[in-house]
């Protein structure tokens, strides 16, 4: 290859690297989610994609949470959940999110630049299972309470008075269910898709309770009788429990023997938030018909709005055609009844009375929530419910400030490291060292350009890898220079020594680099995000160092020797 061609190749490589490193606008063609029409969007393409650890953001690994609800077909449910998450995150509006299935049982979600991790998590995790149920009008719970208390007495559970906020030792012994039931924080969804399995086992139980129906709810001093009272207002099936006793009552009601006392066809649900009645805070408990009249699967659209009357946020929704027909029929049949709106198994607000037939439009009133929460709810409702709740098995979140900090520190380390390497090379090899430094500058350019070309993600370990590789990259040059020195020592002419030096150093350079690439490949295969980023920079760095040390430095020498054909001593 002539000097001319070599220089052209180098210039082309420089141009290519620079081209890939200049931020520019790219056009993205995508489908509009509302209208389904394709349209073009222009966005700035930054040359090096930063990893979550550098730009800040969130990485979540999710699995099906089967502690409350067992999936019949986990593979299908995971695929469904993936689709739902894609829709939700699209609507949420994160730039360049990653949502993908990893293995057979895990979904990985990466959200760059998230500034509100709690909100992002709730959008990802919320089941968003919406259902409407008619409240129980047979006083089933009141009738069942004496029977429940008798069972509890037999188990040794005693009343503690109204201030039973802290779980007792007995409850901790018996109430093993409390861990699997929603905690008072309200984060864990309690999806009511299927009735609790214990209910069907207890099919014969109602007979035992009917004997006690005469006993009034508040008589007898039983644990539950003292804590559960009918709510004021006369809504059938509505009860209230002091907020302090809520976790305890919840765990007691979930004991299989207690739950069995409730007649078939009736199920209990809590309200989503506590309500203040006077100075006390109460939690509403609803006895509801087992079968929902309609669920969110018939939902077509949902929007968050501010209710002009109450000034509180509401979510209005439209049902699809089939849903509208079914809802219309059911509401027409239940005019005058009360209908609870359940989201993830918790009642939203107090059940409204059905005034007349309701067709396709409805609304959910959210008490004491912000408009943003209403928007998030509308978003998740529209995207659909998760078939099975998801649990987060891995979370990594880095604040944007920490990321910026890391970049700053990495760059400082890079500058100091490069300065030291340049100093060593210039002191030791003088003019030849200067050639190596020029090659090193190109090395850095090529590495970054190559990373951009490969659309690689730059992570913090990757950044460290680049800094480290600057020190290692000169190795190829060092090998060559040392060879040239040896050849010169053997009395060869400058030109011959340079030729021989390059030729003999090749073997060692290739062998050592291949072994490094091999280890890097395994790192890439088995590493997670940040470490993968490291492996990529390592591989890219090796490729770039081969090019610069072998090809670029060689060309520099050729030009140099071409200009000074009679050079007797080499500055090396």
């Amino acid at each position, binding site marked *: 290859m002539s000097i001319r061609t070599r220089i052209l190749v180098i210039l082309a490589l420089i141009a290519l690297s620079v081209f890939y490193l200049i931020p520019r606008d790219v056009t993205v063609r995508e489908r509009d989610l509302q209208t389904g029409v394709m349209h073009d969007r222009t966005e700035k393409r930054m040359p090096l994609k930063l990893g979550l650890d550098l730009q800040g953001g969130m990485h979540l690994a999710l699995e099906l*949470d089967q*502690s409350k609800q067992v999936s019949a077909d986990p593979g299908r449910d995971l695929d469904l959940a993936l689709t739902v998450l894609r829709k939700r995150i699209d609507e949420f509006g994160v730039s360049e999110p990653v949502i993908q299935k990893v293995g057979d049982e895990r979904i990985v979600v990466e959200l760059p630049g998230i500034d509100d*991790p709690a909100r992002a998590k709730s959008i990802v995790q919320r089941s968003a299972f919406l259902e409407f149920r008619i409240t129980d009008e047979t006083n089933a719970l009141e009738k069942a309470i004496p029977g429940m208390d008798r069972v509890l007495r037999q188990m040794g559970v005693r009343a503690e008075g109204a201030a039973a906020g802290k779980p007792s030792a007995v409850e901790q012994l018996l109430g093993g269910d409390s*861990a699997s039931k929603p905690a008072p*924080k309200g*984060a864990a969804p309690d999806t009511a898709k299927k009735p609790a399995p214990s209910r069907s086992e207890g099919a014969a139980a109602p007979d035992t309770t009917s004997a006690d129906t005469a006993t009034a709810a508040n008589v007898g001093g039983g644990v539950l009788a003292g804590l559960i009272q009918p709510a004021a207002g006369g809504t059938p099936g509505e009860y209230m429990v002091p907020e302090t006793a809520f976790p305890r009552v919840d765990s007691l009601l979930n004991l299989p023997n207690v739950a069995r006392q409730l007649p078939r066809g009736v199920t209990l649900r809590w309200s989503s938030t506590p309500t203040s009645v006077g100075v006390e805070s109460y939690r509403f408990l609803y006895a509801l018909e087992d079968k929902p009249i309609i669920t969110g699967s018939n939902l077509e659209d949902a929007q968050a709005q501010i209710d002009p009357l109450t000034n509180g946020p509401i979510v209005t929704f439209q049902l699809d055609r089939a849903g509208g027909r079914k809802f219309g029929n059911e509401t027409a049949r239940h005019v005058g009844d009360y209908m609870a709106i359940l989201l993830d198994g918790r009642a939203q607000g107090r059940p409204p009375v059905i005034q007349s037939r309701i067709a396709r439009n409805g609304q959910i009133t959210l008490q004491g929530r912000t408009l943003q929460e209403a928007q998030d709810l509308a978003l998740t409702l529209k995207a659909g419910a998760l078939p099975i709740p998801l*649990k*987060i*098995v*891995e*979370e*990594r*979140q*880095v*604040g944007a*400030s*920490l990321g910026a900090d*890391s970049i700053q*520190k*990495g760059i400082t*380390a890079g500058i*100091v*490291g490069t300065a*030291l*390497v340049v100093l*060593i*090379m210039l002191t*030791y090899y*003088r003019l030849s060292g200067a050639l190596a430094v020029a090659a090193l500058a190109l090395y850095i350019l090529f590495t970054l350009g190559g990373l951009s070309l490969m659309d690689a993600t730059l992570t*913090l*370990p990757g950044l*460290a*890898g680049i*800094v*480290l590789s600057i*020190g*290692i990259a*000169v*190795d190829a040059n*060092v*090998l060559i220079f*040392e060879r040239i020195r*040896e050849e010169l020592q053997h009395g060869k002419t400058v030109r011959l020594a340079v030729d021989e030096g390059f030729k003999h150093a090749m*073997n*060692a350079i290739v*062998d*050592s*680099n291949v*072994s*490094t690439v*091999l*280890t*890097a490949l*395994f*790192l890439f295969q088995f*590493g*997670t995000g*940040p*470490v993968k980023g490291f*492996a990529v920079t390592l591989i890219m760095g090796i490729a770039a160092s081969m090019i610069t040390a072998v090809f670029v430095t060689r060309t520099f020498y050729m030009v140099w020797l071409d200009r000074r054909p009679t050079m007797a001593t080499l500055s090396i």
Partner: protein
Amino acid sequence: MLRFFANAKYDFIGVRRWAYGVTAALILPSLLVLLVRGLNYSIEFTGGTLVQVRSHKAVDVADIRTGLDREGIHGAEIQNFGAPGEYVIRARVAKPGTDANDTQVTAAAVNQALDAVLGAGNYTVIRTEAVGPKVGGELRQKAFLAIFLSFFAVLAYLAYRFEWRFGLAAILATAHDIIATIAFIGVMHLEVSLTVVAAVLSMVGYSLNDTIIIFDRVRENLLKHKKMRFEDILNLSINETLPRSILTHGTTLSTLLALIFFAGEVIRPFALVMFFGVFTGTFSSIYIASPVLMAIERRWPGALARGHMGPAAAATPAPTGRKVQPVGS
């Protein structure tokens, strides 16, 4: 011309028994410490929750601990990280009675404890890592697999490029490096994270690099000096590559020092492991890889090494030659 160790004639191989003693004296007690204390695995591998917070006011670490205990999280590690008011909390054990694979329960409890101690809104969470034991186990398994498989891939490559004798010697040197590095990590009590595993693998690559460059010279010199004894060939090759080694190690160590001092807390363990790796890699190339190659060639001489094992190498055991021989005559 500035040149270090030009035309050096050190008898590296001759003093190899001393070197064995030194490395054994360093590694064995370190491994003992390691056995007693165990490795300090990161959250990624053990599972658990790490929260890094930046608080407006500095509080006593003990206060945070009390707050965590109140939330049912016991035995958490709390560390002042960098600036005052910046803390890293590592809770390796999930909140009792909860599903450890559901990482959110413990994370929520940590946040609640911080709300109580620092006051909600008085601090910002700048980093969270929550890993369930299941994911942790998988990551651990993958890390081991990566080290193990790269080991064999490199062996295969070396066997292909050189011959199995060289490959085996290089791999044994690498094994020494890994053991020495693990001992180093144990003694320094560095946190073993995925990044540190990456450092160990990079160190392996770097050390192999060094070994290969010497072996490359050995192969060349075996062809060039037909009559020279194998031990002398090794010494010659090591001495010839010495200037290169000094310079490359110098530049690599400079960038590593820059990383150690300027790149921050997250990268420091990585840089420290690599820093150590440069030394152990150099040592093992000279004192493990080369003598092992000699031992292998003595027992099962390859085509290249035949004729370098002294007079009548095949019939009588090769001389152990402890005497310093003039090199490169």
